[in-house]
């Protein structure tokens, strides 16, 4: 198993932390993992992206050109990364703010309207966990138990009271994600 993922969106959407939680979940499941962010001034409110790799074997390059899965959270990222999903790969996106929807026919496209759902659940900060839950429904590479362990490791202890809320968001993401037929 070797899953190469790009997660991309605005700074502040929790892109990097979502990647970290996913990677930490992989660690808890005894996988090899890497988490490679874009860093720098662009992170201050601009676009942010992170490459996460989960694998059974030693990971070679943490920087990639083509991805098994792209998780896209804004239009700029859609424009940038849609072409770099491997044929047959997966694109997960949130429809909020998207004006040009995915156009490729050789990939599987899923939509999870996490921003809308987070607003409805009145917990906007769990937005990225709804997305993560959606992704894990499509690619159940790590168990929910290990995701929760990864989440616990990633969050500072003072935020551990928020774990149940995050778990609910992950589960909700799995319920609301749907396949966009080509």
């Amino acid at each position, binding site marked *: 198993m070797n899953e190469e993922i790009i997660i991309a969106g605005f700074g502040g959407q929790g892109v990097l932390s979502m990647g970290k939680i996913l990677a930490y979940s992989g660690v808890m499941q005894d996988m090899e*993992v890497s*988490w490679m962010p874009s*860093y720098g001034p662009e992170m201050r409110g601009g676009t942010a992206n992170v490459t996460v790799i989960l694998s059974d074997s030693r990971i*070679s390059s*943490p920087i990639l050109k083509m991805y098994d899965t792209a998780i896209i959270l804004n239009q700029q990222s859609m424009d940038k990364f849609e072409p770099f999903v491997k044929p047959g790969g997966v694109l997960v996106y949130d429809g909020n703010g998207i004006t040009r929807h995915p156009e490729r026919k050789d990939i599987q496209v899923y939509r999870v309207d996490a921003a809308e759902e987070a607003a409805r659940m009145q917990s906007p900060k769990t937005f990225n966990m709804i997305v993560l839950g959606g992704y894990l429904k499509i690619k159940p590479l790590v168990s929910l138990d290990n995701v929760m362990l990864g989440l616990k490791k990633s969050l500072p202890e003072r935020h551990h009271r928020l774990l149940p809320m995050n778990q609910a968001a992950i589960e909700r993401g799995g319920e609301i994600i749907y396949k966009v037929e080509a």
Partner: protein
Amino acid sequence: MDNKKDIRLMKGNEAIAEAAIRCGVDGYFGYPITPQSEVMETLMLLKPWETTGMVVLQAESEIASINMVYGGAGCGKKVMTSSSSPGISLMQEGLTYLAGAELPCVVVNVVRGGPGLGTIQPAQSDYFQSVKGGGHGDYKLIVLAPASVQEMADFVELAFDLAFKYRNPALILSDGMIGQMMEKVELKPYRKRWTNEEIKQMHPWATMGKPAERERNIITSVELDPNAFERFNHKLQDKYRKMQEEEVRCEQFNCEDAEYLLVAYGSSARICQKAMELARAKGIKVGLLRPITLFPFPTREIQALLGHVKGILSVELSEGQMVEDVRLTVEGKVKVEHFGRVGGVVHSPEEVVEALERKIIGG
């Protein structure tokens, strides 16, 4: 302290800090610069002065940092600093004094693109500065190139071991990619810091206050007698030759049957590993040789492959620095070319394969 197997997901920079505390470092002196500020930030959060007694100090500049390292190293203490390219340039004065005074220490360079203020994105364009001396005079640093977060952690201890073995500064040459990426890392158990008594035993040259029974210790790099200074320079060169004989470290992948060889270190080696997989899938017999020590350079190891290797692509995030050492090694026996993106652009594995086909196989 908890000494059971400790596996974490962390950034390369954070791993440096954790490893420093765990391997019994006495002092860290640094100055913030992107992309390595997490080293000092992590140390400050972990407050090792409350546990191991390690001193952590933010200096007024990189110049002060490296000279604090000199002061601490002169006392036989395990001291280190970290910075990124522009800051490392400022440290070159201190490094040549450290080398001239034969002081052990560890310096980490999380390289970013230059010249000048350049970019905060990763690069490998400080190779010459690292392996050819960097400051004035004939000297060498021991240069280790980690290619993973695990190695960022492990090489702190290795660098100190080598630095003290040879009484020479050791440099960990990383880059923004290895510094900023997170990977799984197994942290080693805590080791006690050396006591002052242990230091006096192990490092009789250290300035710890002169007891009546020994001569005074003087840490210096001044020698005004030309003949004596020539002898001293020869002694340094003997030391560097011994390192070349005994301390070369490298990793080889698929080199046994390779017709073509990629030579790359650090982050580029990771990318080349993937490139090698892609090329092998296309039926090209490619191997990868990853120097772990850049000084001493794996000369013999590369030469040993020249019986079956027909061409070498040296891949680094620079305009072509290490390629000169590869060419010196190969002595014209096979074709050697350079490939690398610069300015903070990182080459993709696909680009490396394309360059190999264009510059070596087809060229």
